[in-house]
């Protein structure tokens, strides 16, 4: 295994080094070609983020509102579906499995082009509600799959005991089932939040440029000539996923059913 360590070090360097220019650009005041380091550092990038004219703060609000709503709705819809696929063996289960995987893999762009006119017709285009609804497309199947795996490993006798002791269906759900599924629910909610947080093209199509989430602002900034502003915004967009994945790392270990979400980010 003599080659293993140097190779690994090289690979990790190759993975991390591309982030360095991003960080450097975010704090640079001037970085002309062919300088290897910025000629001047400045806090301008950070100031742009808090400047009301850049709409970044309202973008943070819009993105958070949409991502939290999408995560909550996807888990609420995915929980019963997960119970159906995790607990029961029924005819057509293979078809349900296929229909729960396909929306995660088939690109949202290809699927959404055909129904964009309906969003316009029913007044959902250019609205936050429309964006939340369309983002259920990649998230609900994912939440259902993760929760389905959790239900398959759940010992239903806990629920039966609660019912035998006189607890109603709602109390059993709130005080028995949901606490038992807590790790899977946190994971599903977290990844649905991240899928929504990173989503660009569905928001563009349905939001019609009116719903300005952070990825839309970042896309516009990359197209502008102000690299410092784009880099600062890029760093801001990365921070929440970085923190959340860092926190979720332990939850994720040994739960490969949820790992597909990492590929969707």
């Amino acid at each position: 295994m003599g080659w293993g360590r140097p190779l690994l070090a090289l690979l990790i360097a190759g993975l991390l080094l591309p982030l360095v220019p991003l960080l450097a650009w975010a704090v640079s005041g001037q970085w002309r070609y062919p300088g290897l380091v910025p000629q001047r550092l400045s806090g301008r990038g950070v100031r742009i983020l808090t400047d009301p004219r850049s709409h970044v703060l309202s973008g943070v609000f819009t993105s958070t509102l949409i991502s939290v709503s999408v995560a909550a709705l996807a888990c609420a819809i995915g929980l019963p579906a997960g119970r159906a696929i995790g607990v029961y063996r029924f005819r057509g289960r293979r078809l349900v499995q296929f229909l729960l995987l396909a929306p995660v893999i088939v690109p949202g762009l290809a699927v959404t082009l055909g129904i964009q006119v309906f969003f316009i017709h029913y007044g959902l285009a250019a609205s936050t509600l429309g964006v939340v609804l369309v983002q259920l497309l990649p998230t609900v199947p994912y939440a259902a799959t993760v929760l389905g795996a959790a239900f398959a490993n759940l010992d239903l006798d806990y629920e039966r005991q609660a019912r035998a002791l006189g607890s109603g269906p709602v109390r059993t759900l709130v005080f028995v089932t949901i606490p038992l599924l807590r790790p899977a629910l946190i994971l599903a909610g977290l990844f649905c939040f991240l899928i929504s947080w990173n989503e660009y093209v569905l928001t563009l199509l349905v939001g019609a440029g009116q719903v300005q989430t952070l990825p839309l602002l970042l896309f516009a900034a990359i197209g502008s000539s102000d690299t410092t502003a784009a880099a600062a915004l890029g760093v801001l967009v990365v921070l929440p996923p970085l923190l959340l994945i860092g926190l979720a790392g332990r939850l994720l270990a040994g739960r490969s059913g949820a790992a597909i979400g990492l590929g969707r980010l």
Partner: protein
Amino acid sequence: MPSFRSSRLPRGLRITLLLSPAAVVIGVFFLGGVSQAVAQSFGYQPFLPDYHWSTDAYRAIWLDPAVRASLLITLRVSLASTVIAAVSGVAAALAIRGLRRGRGWVTGLFQVNLAVPHLVGALCMLLLLGQSGVIARLTLTAGLSTSPAAFPQLTGDRFGWGIIAEYAWKETPFVGIIALAALSRGVADLENAARVLGATQWQRRRHVTLPLLAPPVAAASVLVFAFAAGTYEVPYLLGRSYPATLSVVALQDYRDTDLSVRPQAMAVAVVITLLTTVLVIAYLALAKRLSGRPL
């Protein structure tokens, strides 16, 4: 079975009710979206009275050199980045497993890119690989190039180097994490058994480790290929408008002010859907070999 049931509803109705909220979402957005794309690619136009069915859109994209070039670059970029991500992901997983100390923080560093959105990844590649990017500046300092124009075009190029670099960079940790998870499941016991039976290190790797890794890594690769074939923002920012990948062509045609191009946009969307649906089936077949446990 205990004598009391959690519900008096018949089993079939119970399953239907449990599935119905998710079925509405998938029915409206996924099945509705796919069938609308198919219908509109054959000329149907919702809310417009005068449309006629035809296969013109498919004939047009079949004859369009831009779409042929697009199919080629889409497949090339997806395949190249999938192969790079799979090979380096597996190599990294094997190397990480071989570490005696510091495995935790090395894995942590290795995983950082998982959290980086593709959009930010594309920006990183622009700043790194562009003609006035950091690598171009390094080659100038080292005396290997003389000006931005003398540095090879790696972003906005015909081949798609920048796009491949972004996907490979972003998806290597994904394959690596899947491979690490597969390696942790009792593989060491099997390798030790092979060692006791006299297998050399090469034989153990060839006949024990790699066969155990193959199904999950293949499944992860299918996912990587599908995402690489379908994302819009990365090829838009790192590629050029001709030849562009299928998703870029689809959105370009869709946003064309000439509405007669719209059926072609839908036809391209249908091609993307068919291509990736084949991958869904491949993934499910692979997942079944993983003892019915999807990734």
